[in-house]
């Protein structure tokens, strides 16, 4: 129990940051985090040591967040109230707009999750495919698509700022 608590403590902040991008409110993200850790503890016997522990945790978290959205899997963007967006509230002040906010607007939930796990969590393609329960080729293709979309967005923003500046 204590070992698990220590392990959970090591991962929970990163998990919560990820869940903020997948839940409609801060309270929802906290609830999903709690449920994820309890589920991981209860079903610890089903953990496959060939996986990274964090990959397994993210997989449970993604499922729990999807469960909260209901069986129709409504896209996060459709649920969120712009004024009370938990992600916006947690973003530290910066001169430029946070690219993850744009990513969430431009990418679908799964591609967004793949991009987050790759670039925010530094996960390998194999781990991402396990966490999302997708094939490695699906993950590679969608990471590339996500990159292309965000690259275009980044270049577009740079062009605009040059034009105004």
């Amino acid at each position, binding site marked *: 129990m204590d070992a698990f608590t220590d392990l959970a403590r090591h991962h929970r902040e990163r998990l919560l940051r990820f869940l903020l991008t997948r839940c409609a409110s801060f309270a929802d993200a906290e609830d999903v985090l709690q449920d994820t850790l309890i589920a991981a503890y209860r079903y610890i016997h089903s953990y496959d040591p060939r996986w990274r522990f964090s990959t397994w945790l993210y997989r449970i978290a993604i499922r729990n967040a999807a469960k909260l959205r209901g069986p129709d899997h409504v896209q996060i963007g459709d649920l969120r109230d712009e004024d009370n967006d938990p992600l916006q509230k947690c973003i530290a002040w910066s001169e430029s707009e946070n690219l993850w906010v744009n990513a969430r607007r431009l990418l679908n939930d799964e591609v967004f999750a793949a991009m987050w796990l790759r670039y925010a969590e*530094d996960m390998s393609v194999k781990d991402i495919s396990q966490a999302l329960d997708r094939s490695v080729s699906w993950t590679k293709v969608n990471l590339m698509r996500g990159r292309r979309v965000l690259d275009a967005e980044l270049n577009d923003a740079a062009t605009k700022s040059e034009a105004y500046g």
Partner: protein
Amino acid sequence: MPPRKVKPMDKLSKRLRDDAACIDVAISEELDHRIEASLRAATPETDPGRARAARPALFWWASTITGVAAAAAVIALLNWQVPDEPVRPPPVPIAELAPLPDLNVEAAMLTAPLQQELEDLQSDFKKAEEKVRRDIGL
């Protein structure tokens, strides 16, 4: 072994990493207590495979013996109900089943019509022969 070549991080990757780091989250004390309390209340489920393995060896023997005893009882019961020799009907004389016709019939009675027929045919044959001879002038 040569050191692993680290791919330089491109502009987009760096931006995504930096922007993720800008998302400032902290686990509140209340959430910390909540998580800890729910973890203490939860009990890990046992692995069904492990639970099977944890059964004592005696359990296996007991179930084997019970199974063998049940099979033996069924076999004994079936054999007990079957008689040693198959039941056969008492022998019945053939004559009683279907009475045979009287075989002591006169042979002449049976062959007489045929004999008559033969004689008639021979006489017809002779008559026809004579007629043919007469016609050809012999």
